[in-house]
């Protein structure tokens, strides 16, 4: 059975993409040695038409069939380390991040 994933996007402006990469890499390293959560990985994309604009795409999946991926993401959002990460994000971006939330309808393979 295939469960529906959930994606959160965060659009930011930054002059320090290397800091964004480091922030995400540190997050992943910590997640890899932690208990299983719904978080499964991130993409960081640079906008070719709008230099300085970046899109962070964070994916969440089902861990327990009784808990949806969106609920896993909500649990993740409530964790102190997530709040701390969001605080650090503000230090390396200009202005406020724009958050959007998506349910996955289709995926290749």
């Amino acid at each position: 059975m295939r469960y529906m994933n959930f994606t959160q996007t965060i659009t930011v402006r930054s002059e320090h993409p290397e800091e964004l990469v480091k922030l995400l890499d540190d997050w992943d390293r910590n997640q890899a040695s932690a208990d299983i959560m719904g978080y499964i990985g991130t993409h960081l994309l640079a906008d070719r038409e709008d230099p300085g604009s970046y899109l962070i795409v964070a994916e969440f999946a089902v861990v327990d069939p009784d808990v949806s991926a969106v609920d896993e993401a909500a649990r993740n959002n409530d964790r102190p380390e997530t709040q701390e990460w969001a605080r650090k994000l503000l230090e390396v971006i200009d202005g406020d991040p724009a958050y959007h939330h998506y349910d996955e309808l289709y995926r290749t393979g």
Partner: protein
Amino acid sequence: MAGDTPEHVLLVSRGMATAVAPDDGITHVQAELLHAITLALTGEDVNYLELEPLGSDELADVLRERDQTYRQRIVHHMVLGELVLRPLPLEVSRRVEVYATAIGVEDRFVRVARRYAMGAYGLAWKDLQRSGFTEHWEQADRSALRATVDVSGPFEGGGADPELEAKWEAFRELPEGSLGRSVWQMYDGRGFALPGSAHGPSPYLAQHDFVHVIADYGTNLKGEVEVFAFLGRADPDPKGFAWLATLIGLFETGYIEDTGFFERDVREHNVRAPGMSTRLADAIARGKAVCEYYETDLFEVDYHELAPRAVEEVREMLGVVPKSAEALASDSPGIFDRAGMSELQRRIADARAGGEA
């Protein structure tokens, strides 16, 4: 599992089969692999396709008197049964965790499999790296590697190290049949760059090349699966399972893309290939024999010290037993057999031998 009663083996097999079976039943790949492992380790011929289910609590009862190490190895067999599945159903990974918990085992490789099932492949590889390699590397005595430049990680080449390269080159002068001369012949015959040279492998990873010679396994992908199954099980620390988990991810299911020492290659499934279950199981059984006899991670052995000795003598010292008749019948090639080389390695070997096909 050796010395266990047939009844005990059957019960454990039923538990493992129940844990790893997808909803529509255990797959042929899983059944063949677990059958081969059970046969190699216990001598019992169990048909995994026709077993009655056994619940996690019942399995816990069966294993109640067994020590932690034994139970953890059973969990690793279950994880192995999961890792050959792609996709790996979430339900299977959860069930294996339930069984592991029931028998009192908290194991990081169960967690890795759960990440695969979720589609968290990148995190799974980071987890596997950390659990199997990085943490150990940080604590390991690395003097046996003989590197003279700083090597930052288990799979980092560390750049050119002329002194180390010279030590490996000097193996050429050792007597025919010695460990050092044999490993040099393996490198030279296949055109491999020596450790310490600009394009050479990491000195840590090069340790496994001595084991290719000692355990007599080829250097194509199937030979790599065999040698790492052997090495992993020879390690008294269960972390050794990371090697086999990694090789299956690289060369069978493709869950792992690039390790820094091998890249994913699933043009052919290297575990479900004919005879490979038997070969892999025999490698595990031979590794287990070394584990019980020598009680040392083979990555920590000072092979440079042993290099002048005859290969046979080193085998005896480590407690390496011959390949089983079943593995030989399944065409497990030796280190210098052409069948144990990749196509590219064969071409290089032919060119070096003067162009004979």
